[in-house]
């Protein structure tokens, strides 16, 4: 039977380094992705993820399972990321979605039906826009959205990680998604022709 994360961490506390390797293997990718969405740059995200795992290992003797392991892990990661962003260490990496692309390729254009655009190029440009929009959110909203959308965490756990109540979190998420809806209107809004067509159908 597979040991729970808490049990693995208790084994790490007891001196079992293999259990630490198992936790590292299980959570390095989710953690790097979370931090990548917080600070954009993958190298910076990996530096922060290294710091998170290092702190987990260093604090193993004091570990007490008062919460879910993921809550503890992501709370450390969130605090590190928020401090790093507030310190300005990663400010230069944030981009504006209105700015020209920082990657190779032309500025984004909506794909017309007739256009035979390079699909990969369009996909990359869409991803850049979405990442850029998330990065323009205030840090706490950004963390809430990333944990909610990309890590599928429930409100109670996100609330514990961010140190806010569930109702405050719901309000935070609504404001964040509302900002993203406006910023990514180009990708999200219904095409006017489709809306007009539906309007006519309703009239009929």
């Amino acid at each position, binding site marked *: 039977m597979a040991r729970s994360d808490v049990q693995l961490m208790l084994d790490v506390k007891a001196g079992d380094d293999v259990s630490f*390797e198992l936790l590292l293997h299980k959570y*390095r990718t989710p953690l790097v*992705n979370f931090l*990548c969405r917080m600070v954009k740059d993958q190298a910076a995200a990996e530096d922060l*993820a*290294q710091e998170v795992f290092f702190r987990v290992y*260093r604090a193993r003797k004091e570990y007490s399972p008062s919460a879910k392991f993921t809550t503890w892990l992501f709370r450390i990661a969130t605090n590190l990321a928020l401090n790093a962003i507030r310190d300005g260490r990663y400010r230069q990496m944030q981009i504006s979605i209105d700015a020209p692309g920082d990657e190779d390729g032309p500025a984004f254009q909506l794909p017309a039906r007739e256009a035979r655009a390079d699909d990969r190029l369009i996909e990359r440009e869409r*991803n850049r826009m979405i990442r850029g929009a998330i990065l323009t959110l205030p840090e706490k909203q950004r963390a809430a959205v990333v944990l909610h959308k990309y890590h599928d965490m429930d409100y109670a756990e996100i609330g514990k990680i961010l140190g806010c109540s569930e109702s405050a979190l719901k309000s935070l998420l*609504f404001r964040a998604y509302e900002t993203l809806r406006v910023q990514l209107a180009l990708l999200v*809004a219904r095409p006017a022709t489709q809306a007009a067509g539906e309007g006519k159908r309703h009239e009929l």
Partner: protein
Amino acid sequence: MNCEKISNALVAYLDGRANSDERGVVEAHLKLCAACQERADEFRRLWQVMAEVPAVEPSLGFDARLRQRIAAAPRPKFWAGMLPAPRFAFSVALLVALSVWVGGRQPRSVNPQIATANSEEQFRMIKDLGVLENYDVLSNFDALSDLPASTQPQQSPQPGNDPDSGSGG
């Protein structure tokens, strides 16, 4: 329910975590409010769009780098384990400081010798209580004050009349 109140329940409704009551309230509002219905549709599309962004994989050297860092970290001193945890040490220090402070505010303990002396004094006072109770009566006794100052005024002895002062020889 108005649009503002619906807004906080909308995300939970769309992600399926709202309870049946919340769901009912939101659905009833969405049927009546075209703006909120449109927002809900766009939130759904937004989530689809956000899901397009692929996950990244940590670089190959990630684990090795971490192991290297852990190995390079200074080992805790052998006596570090004997030191109390910071929270425990702080709690003990606080308790000691509080005890000293509270002890300083207590009335000082009574010296046994002084206590004995006080007891004897109290005993004497109780023994003479009858006299002390009458002290005011005695000191303000009008009958004594009404007496003539002196029935036979004393005369100061005259040097010439003093039989002892005469020249005897």
